[in-house]
């Protein structure tokens, strides 16, 4: 019995292969985009965790100086007080103009050492040389390749148990290369301390203890917003995909009602039928889910380089370029596909379950009922929006921002049908011609069947507008900021300090203003902080992008009594002009201003060059900005190259550096636009499937009008017009929603995530293009049903009038 019932049920798909294809494509799309995002997130998170673990930062608490470094003497005295500590010295080394982050550790005591020992063992070279000059590097194979190309003095042990982008060396080598024989960046507090030691806060009041987990979570916290962002996109795509699935499942069950009725009449229990149908859905879900996973893996692999670029560019977080296949990823993807399918099919299955054996199909009593359900949905939507607003008013933080956004988006989606229905009613009231009157009314009648697809479209459009506005605003601000920040006409990097000195002299002899760019790197509360020294020059006074400043800011900086801090540093530590900041225990300066500093994850401060040199006379003097009339640039550039042996790439004019910065910026947001486009595509597909699903219900509505003298061609035109009308309404509503989204991204999410607030710019041209794109998608989605309609055999329409129905 079960077998023949099953074959009857499945025979449906033989007759409707397109429907099956749509169902599977919808599911695969939903699963695919979701799991692509999950794969990317998973990979990145695993990378961070690996990096933290590999760098030993998860193993132990850190002891870090509030500002500056730890002296060897301080370290030794802590050791002599019985604390088991291991020193770390970090910095940047350059080989052949290529910079590498180096982490110098004590190979006798650092928790990272077993991994290195294992690598050294595999290398089968005597690793004693790691402790003795010239010393050995340990690096991820990717990094090792770059390093090997840049230098050959130090042998390298490759190990993929280290994160890419960082060199590990014994502290003896690191301190030689960094020329810091007497300072340490931080200390790790090893586990298993002897009890009864004098507490560290008494022994070293200037050092702060940073718990192991938070040190590891640094990158995670920094990149949280990015991953939340991706997850939101993934979930959105999944939801949109489910709209397709829901439509198709309902259709397939509705079309099989007759058959199911017959089977029941033949004695197959309803329970068996529902189980069979559920099993059918499960099989479809598994197959499509698998296809979706495969697609998702490909999408993730294709997007990962851009994600890598984004994370590196915005957060300085290194992510492995290879995508691993994780079992939990596969399982969660399949689970997502199955649960999504059942969620989408639950209503239809439930309706089937309740279907009486003999009654005729329920009449399409939509009108009033639809209005009531629109109102209920709108109430729920309004509540969602209000809840979101309440959350953001009461709480702060990234999560609150996202809760607000999801409340807003979900709420708006729920309110959408009522708004469109109202709009259509007004339209109908205003129309005078019978055809348009019918068109408005008929469109409204279509609304319940289309509303899910329209919600999907609304979300996709609003996200596009919101994220697009955010990115474009960011870009515009960024360009303006570049103009201010890169005020010098030419930037030159000398190959040595001596050459830098000669170059400065030579340029000044030519009457060119030379602005040295010199910096030192210290640590502030455990995080790296760059201290730039600037000369007192009107270039800074005129151009520097200050957000807030005390009166006479530049005079105070030039006098060496004040400093400027970048916005993210100020926000992170809650600093404002007028407060003071201790860069070192004996070096405290007033904060005279805050400047914007985009695309930089770390803190930065600016003070007088003279004051910086007083304290650190040995900081490199190789980078210079030159002020000169723009027309002289080519000549000066070529004469610098004639007189000095400076590689071509070390002399960059303003335009070149801006172009480079912009291209990095654009690459950073490639992933966003790719996801944007994919989401819009899915929404378009959802509209198409909705229209196809509605198709069978359309004929009874169209046939009478056709009989009254509207040609099939006119009806087909009406079909497209209706789709455009709905899309246009949705687009018009998506616009304000998108702008609120953009505002939230710029003023809430960005501040939390990056530490900078961006002004919002409006781009009506982009909106117009997007709305046209949405209309185009709607037209394309309606084109197939319309074409079918215009070529429909009248006999099909006449069947509507057939008495035996």
């Amino acid at each position: 019995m079960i077998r023949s019932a099953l074959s009857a049920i499945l025979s449906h798909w033989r007759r409707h292969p397109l429907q099956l294809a749509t169902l599977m494509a919808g599911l695969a799309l939903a699963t695919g985009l979701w799991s692509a995002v999950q794969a990317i997130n998973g990979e990145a998170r695993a990378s961070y965790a690996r990096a933290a673990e590999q760098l030993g930062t998860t193993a132990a608490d850190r002891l870090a100086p509030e500002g500056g470094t730890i002296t060897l003497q301080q370290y030794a005295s802590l050791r002599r007080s019985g604390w088991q500590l291991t020193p770390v010295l970090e910095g940047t080394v350059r080989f052949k103009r290529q910079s590498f982050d180096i982490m110098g550790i004590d190979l006798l005591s650092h928790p990272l050492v077993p991994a290195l020992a294992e690598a050294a063992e595999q290398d089968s070279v005597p690793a004693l040389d790691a402790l003795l000059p010239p010393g050995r590097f340990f690096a991820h194979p990717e990094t090792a390749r770059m390093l090997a190309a840049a230098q050959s003095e130090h042998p390298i042990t490759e190990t993929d148990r280290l994160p890419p982008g960082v060199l590990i060396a014994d502290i003896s080598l690191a301190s030689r290369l960094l020329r810091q024989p007497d300072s340490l960046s931080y200390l790790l507090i090893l586990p298993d301390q002897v009890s009864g030691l004098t507490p560290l806060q008494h022994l070293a009041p200037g050092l702060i203890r940073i718990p192991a987990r938070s040190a590891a979570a640094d990158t995670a916290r920094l990149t949280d917003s990015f991953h939340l962002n991706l997850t939101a996109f993934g979930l959105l795509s999944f939801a949109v995909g489910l709209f397709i699935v829901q439509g198709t499942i309902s259709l397939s069950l509705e079309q099989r009602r007759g058959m199911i009725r017959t089977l029941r009449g033949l004695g197959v229990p309803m329970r068996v039928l529902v189980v069979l149908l559920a099993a059918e859905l499960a099989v479809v879900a598994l197959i499509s889910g698998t296809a979706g996973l495969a697609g998702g893996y490909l999408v993730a692999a294709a997007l990962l380089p851009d994600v890598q670029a984004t994370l590196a560019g915005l957060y300085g977080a290194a992510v492995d370029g290879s995508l691993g296949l994780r079992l939990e990823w596969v399982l969660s993807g399949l689970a997502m596909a199955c649960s999504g399918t059942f969620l989408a099919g639950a209503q239809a299955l439930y309706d089937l379950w309740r279907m009486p054996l003999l009654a005729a199909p329920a009449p399409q009593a939509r009108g009033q009922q639809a209005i009531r359900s629109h109102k209920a949905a709108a109430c729920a939507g309004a509540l969602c929006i209000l809840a979101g607003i309440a959350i953001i008013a009461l709480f702060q933080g990234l999560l609150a921002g996202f809760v607000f956004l999801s409340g807003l988006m979900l709420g708006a989606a729920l309110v959408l049908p009522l708004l469109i229905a109202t709009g259509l009613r007004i339209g109908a009231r205003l129309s005078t011609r019978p055809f348009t009157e019918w068109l408005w009314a008929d469109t409204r009648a279509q609304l319940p069947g289309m509303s899910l697809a329209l919600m999907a479209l609304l979300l996709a459009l609003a996200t596009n507008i919101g994220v697009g506005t955010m990115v474009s605003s960011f870009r515009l601000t960024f360009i303006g900021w570049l103009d201010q920040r890169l005020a010098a006409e030419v930037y030159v990097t000398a190959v040595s300090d001596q050459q830098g000195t000669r170059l400065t002299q030579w340029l000044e002899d030519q009457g060119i203003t030379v602005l040295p760019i010199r910096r030192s790197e210290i640590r502030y509360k455990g995080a790296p902080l760059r201290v730039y020294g600037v000369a007192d020059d009107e270039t800074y006074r005129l151009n520097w992008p200050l957000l807030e400043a005390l009166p006479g800011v530049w005079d105070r900086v030039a006098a060496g009594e004040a400093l400027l801090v970048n916005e993210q540093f100020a926000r992170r530590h809650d600093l404002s002009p007028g407060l003071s900041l201790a860069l070192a225990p004996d070096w405290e300066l007033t904060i005279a201003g805050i400047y914007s500093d985009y695309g930089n994850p770390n803190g930065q401060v600016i003070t007088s060059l003279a004051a910086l040199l007083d304290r650190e006379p040995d900081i490199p003097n190789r980078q210079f900005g030159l002020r000169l009339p723009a027309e002289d640039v080519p000549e000066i550039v070529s004469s610098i190259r004639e007189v000095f042996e400076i590689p071509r790439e070390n002399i960059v004019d303003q335009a070149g550096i801006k172009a480079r910065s912009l291209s990095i910026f654009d690459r950073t947001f490639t992933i966003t636009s790719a996801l944007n486009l994919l989401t819009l595509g899915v929404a378009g597909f959802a509209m198409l499937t909705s229209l196809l699903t509605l198709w069978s219900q359309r004929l009874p509505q169209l046939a009478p009008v056709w009989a009254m003298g509207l040609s099939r061609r006119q009806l087909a035109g009406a079909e497209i017009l209706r789709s455009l009308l709905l899309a246009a309404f949705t687009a018009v509503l998506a616009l304000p929603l998108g702008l609120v989204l953009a505002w939230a991204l710029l003023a809430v999410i960005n501040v939390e995530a990056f530490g900078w607030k961006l002004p919002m710019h409006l781009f009506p041209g982009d909106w117009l293009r997007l709305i046209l794109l949405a209309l185009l998608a709607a037209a394309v989605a309606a084109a197939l049903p319309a074409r079918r309609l215009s070529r429909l055999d009248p006999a099909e329409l006449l069947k509507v009038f057939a008495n035996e129905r």
Partner: protein
Amino acid sequence: MNVRSVLTIFIAGWATEALPQGYAGLGTEAGGFSVPELGGQLSFPRDHGAHPDFRIEWWYLTANLTDTGGNDYGIQWTLFRSALAPGEAEGWQSPQIWMAHAAVTAPDQHLFAERIARGGVGQAGVLADPFDAWIGDWQMRSTGEAIERMEITASGQEFSYELQLFADGPLALHGEDGYSVKSASGQASYYYSQPHYQVSGTLDLPGGPIAVTGRGWMDREWSSQPLAEDQSGWDWFSLSFDSGDKLMGFVLRGERGDFTSGTWITADGKAEPLAPGAFYAEALAASDVQGRQVPTRWHASLPEKGVSIEVQALNPKSWMGTTFSYWEGPVSVSGSHSGKGYLEMTGYE
């Protein structure tokens, strides 16, 4: 254990135990390091300090102690120096690596700890005058003339001790004025001892603090290549007899036959070097310690002094499970002479 694996890999010249070149790499070539020379004069207090041009060196204190209830304890305080390259350098560039072991042994427990630190940055080192040897907060420090009066401290997870030492006898130079031959083919080390310490102080054990008194013995030895190629370990005895006489005797186990030597120290502190083969020891019974068979009851004899004794470990489980591991613990002596002492056994795998 992290450090262990590191050292095994990184300090190939030192920490590999049962390799053919012998215990703790002591059988390797001298390679640029100074080597002990016959006739080299030891000079104090200078030679209480470190000798960075030699590959390896140690300050090795053991003591047999009793509490007021008559219970026996042993303690060990050892600082090893191992050079990756000869000489000293500033800061992290120093090739000197320091390692220390501390232990407290009672009949029913053996607690030990280890510390490792690089030289050059002040976390570990030895100064000759005033004498100060330290690693972290472990310390052996002079409180008087040279090493006559000293104070030692060490602490591990489960124990710590703080002891005062007072030497009531002279230094004993082993071999020929401190030149101690370690194999038939002539490998040697500089080796002297201070075997005459009165010890008092406090042991802090899991059960609480215990006041103790007793006798201590410090060995000082440095070399660059003290073992012959075929030698794989040693059994070393430092025994103080109730008569006041003392015996230091060792057996270097080699494939081409054992090499034994030692020093007889009279009650008044005179050191008489023993000829190779004059002292000998044979294992009577072995104990299963950490999965190894280690002899913990010995018969030792030195016929020329009428010594025929049985040496019995206070606690057969006195295994030092440190980066390189060995057996080290207090012993009691019976037979022709009675007394107490320390036994060290290496190379048992």
